[in-house]
């Protein structure tokens, strides 16, 4: 068995007063100002949304077993892929790590008692839930069929689906992101404990800071864009309608101005988690701390100037294409720097293979592959062939699922004992990680091939010759689904029946491991003064207390 067993001298979690048992009752949860409880509220909400988006995906893949569509009519298929994309992007991936792990960990990792604006934090959860309600209403009332990209004039003048309700849901959820990002920036700037200088911060904080910059600067643009789209649809006025002088491409520019940085919102926190996991499970400080820290900022900044690579085939000028292509290559470099630094961190480390580490290693490999396929798309000539095909679908799922979700799972497994005070069964966890890894690759690797062969995306029916690859992909999807259900089961189980975890079951550094599991409401029993760098493994006392 692994080394992740509580120290036998540890006081059992139940007899301590911590944030979970400090108060009881539904009001104490729904009116909480504790960032840790708010993180858990978010965890519940986004898990629900993930399941809904996942059901849509399963139905899609089942339909694609047959070239003529095995399960649903075209209109239904169009709604399924739209709902899948909208829910997964706006209601799962964007909030996932920031609102759950970010909310829980940021104050603890910097040595603070809470975030800067706890009431704003609670409000952001209610705003998010309101957005979810609008979105789920749109789904229940019949769904939307515009794709998550909502391109007009189809979405403004032709679609008969519940575009306005869904657009409003996304608009509202966007405010939740803005408030969260604002809270994090102020917290990280102003509430670090004495001695916690910027360059002693854990890299998860750097990643969350960069993510928050994108939250506050990018989200308002999608908000106003969706507002304009809703107005056009409701009032029948032509902002994007060419018939009265509007420009449908203006929508695309405004949409992608947010949605490209949004994909970095979805991956940067995951990268932050990987920095934490690699160091903890090789018991070494990170290789190239400043490079990894600055690469997060570089990615956030450059992400704002590459949006045109989603529009290479729209008929924009050659020069626009060249500029966006160059910048899209530039944005790849900081990510490469991170991958090399993580790999180098393993060198001469003391490596163990608990589930969080398996997820982290899976992330590095799959993110590398997925990120490199991005080069095919930054490259103009190949993008002309690949745009709008399954290659794109495979590319972004490698990053979002093989990357972001694996990082999220790794983070959940790593910090679960801290959040709940309980351990989950590691053998089942490792098994699930393996099932997810296999299922994921079987689902999405064939899609690269499908894409180059020319199968377009958003097709519910397709030419016969693409069937074998589609069936492989659907088979993989069923395995992937099972892989995600297993942790759901053992996490629930561990809440009541898991063995108690001590304050530092992994023997890791970081302020979160110096406090009890679960932490007290005020996060720390004693005042925090920081005197050492992050990941100070070789000289720190690594055994649990």
């Amino acid at each position, binding site marked *: 068995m692994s*080394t992740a067993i509580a120290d036998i001298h540890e006081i059992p979690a139940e007899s301590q007063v911590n944030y979970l048992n400090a108060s009881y009752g539904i009001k104490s949860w729904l009116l909480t100002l504790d960032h840790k409880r708010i993180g858990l509220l978010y965890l519940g909400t986004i898990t629900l949304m993930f399941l809904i988006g996942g059901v849509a995906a399963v139905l899609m893949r089942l339909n694609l077993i047959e070239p003529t569509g095995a399960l649903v009519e*075209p209109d239904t298929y169009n709604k399924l892929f739209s709902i899948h994309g909208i829910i997964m992007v706006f209601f799962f991936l964007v909030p996932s790590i920031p609102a759950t792990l970010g909310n829980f960990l940021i104050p603890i990792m910097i040595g603070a008692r809470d975030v800067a604006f706890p009431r704003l934090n609670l409000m952001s959860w209610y705003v998010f839930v309101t957005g979810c309600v609008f979105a789920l209403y749109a789904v229940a009332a019949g769904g939307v069929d*515009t794709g998550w990209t909502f391109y007009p*004039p*189809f979405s403004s003048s*032709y679609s008969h689906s519940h575009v306005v309700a869904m657009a409003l849901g996304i608009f509202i959820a966007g405010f939740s992101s803005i408030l969260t990002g604002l809270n994090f920036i102020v917290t990280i700037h102003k509430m670090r404990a004495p001695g916690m200088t910027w360059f002693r911060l854990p890299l998860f904080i750097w990643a969350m800071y960069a993510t928050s910059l994108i939250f506050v600067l990018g989200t308002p643009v999608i908000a106003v864009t969706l507002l304009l789209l809703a107005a056009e649809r409701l009032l029948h006025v032509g902002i994007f309608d*060419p*018939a009265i*002088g509007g*420009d449908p491409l203006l929508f695309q520019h405004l949409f992608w101005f947010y949605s490209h940085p949004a994909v970095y919102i979805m991956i940067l926190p995951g990268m932050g988690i990987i920095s934490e996991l690699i160091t903890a499970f*090789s*018991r070494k400080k990170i*290789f*190239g701390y400043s*490079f990894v820290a600055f690469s997060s900022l570089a990615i956030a900044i450059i992400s704002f100037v590459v949006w045109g690579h989603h529009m290479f*085939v729209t*008929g924009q000028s*050659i020069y626009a*294409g*060249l500029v966006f*292509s*160059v910048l899209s*290559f530039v944005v*790849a470099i900081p990510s*490469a720097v991170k991958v090399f*630094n993580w790999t*180098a961190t*393993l*060198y*001469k*480390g*003391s*490596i*163990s293979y608990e589930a969080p580490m398996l997820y982290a290693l899976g992330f590095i*490999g799959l993110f*590398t*592959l997925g990120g*490199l*396929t991005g*080069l*095919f798309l*930054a*490259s*103009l*000539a190949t993008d*002309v062939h690949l*745009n709008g095909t399954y290659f794109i679908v495979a590319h972004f799922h490698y990053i979002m699922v093989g990357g972001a979700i694996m990082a999220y799972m790794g983070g959940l497994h790593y910090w679960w004992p801290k959040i709940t005070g309980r351990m989950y069964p590691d053998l089942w966890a490792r098994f699930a990680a393996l099932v997810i890894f296999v299922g994921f690759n079987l689902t999405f690797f064939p899609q690269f*091939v499908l894409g180059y*062969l*020319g199968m*377009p995306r*958003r*097709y519910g*029916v397709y*030419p016969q*010759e693409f069937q074998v690859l589609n069936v492989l992909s659907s088979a993989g999807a069923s395995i992937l689904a099972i892989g995600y259900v297993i942790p759901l089961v053992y996490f629930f189980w561990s809440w009541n029946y898991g063995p108690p975890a001590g304050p530092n079951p992994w*023997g890791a550094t970081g302020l979160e491991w110096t406090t009890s599991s679960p932490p007290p409401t005020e996060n720390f029993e004693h005042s925090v003064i920081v005197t050492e760098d992050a990941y100070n*493994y*070789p000289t720190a006392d690594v*055994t649990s207390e």
Partner: protein
Amino acid sequence: MMGLSQFGLNATKAAASSLALMIPMQPPAASTISGDIDQLYYLLTGITLFFTVLIFSIIFYFMVKYRRRSNDERPPDVHSPLVLELAWTVIPSLICVVIFVWSSILYIRSSRPPAAATEIFVVGKQWMWHLQHPEGPREINELHVPVGVPVKLTMTSQDVIHGFYVPAFRLKKDVLPGRYTSLWFEASEVGTYHLFCTEFCGTNHAEMIGWVYVMSPEDYAVWLSGGENSEPMAQQGEQIFNHYTCGYCHVADGTGRGPSLVGIFGKPEKLSSGESRVVDEAVIRQALLQPNSVPVAGYAPIMPTFQGQLTEEQILQLIAYVKSLGVQERASAR
């Protein structure tokens, strides 16, 4: 240098095809640019596989060699040399530069049609493709083209955004309402190839598909002259022109209320703001649908709009007619 890279490419190709087994890895290569795109694709695949295998192998090696053997292990302090950081920043950057330059050259080539390209006109609508050859024949969801001849497609949509995609040519372009986009290719292999709509456009987006038939020049000439709808587009345009009595204002010798249209296509025209612009398809379309929005020098802005009265196909036929004016004049003047 070229020989070495060629060898490397062929080696990668061989590796990739051996990976392919029973499953084809690429669509047929049927345009003059397909092979070049495939080469670039193989290079990118090679780079991807190389770095993925490299990272995976190093990780696997480290995982085994440095696995934790005892809980009291103290890993040594490893410093990150600046030279290493610079190396793995600069080398990927150089690789990206190479890919960017190579790709951009191909892209520029595929964006600039040769002057003598045959023009074919495409109107996309939910959920079918209407194509018309200037010589007259119309097609639905099918495109017949001769091999070895550059073809330029001028495209517009009647409703929402569509995408015209021929995987065998490795080319696509979005088709937008309210404007023209264009795509050019030179087919290199006789055969039948998929045509897909590649920008989501509603219920039957997945059924908005068809075929491109690349034929030998002789077969194409035979196909072109057969069939009923063989009135040339310029002639159809002339009929529309006469039907709406456009010649009442647009008198050929320039004495009318509107400018003469003889020989104006492809030439600059002077605007009343003092600037000048070249008359192309988009200019004529705007003049028909939003006349007077950009007034022409020397003429009062009194042209009526034909918004709602002309279909996209009719606009294209009118454009073909205007293009033919001046060409006929020069031809008849000899």
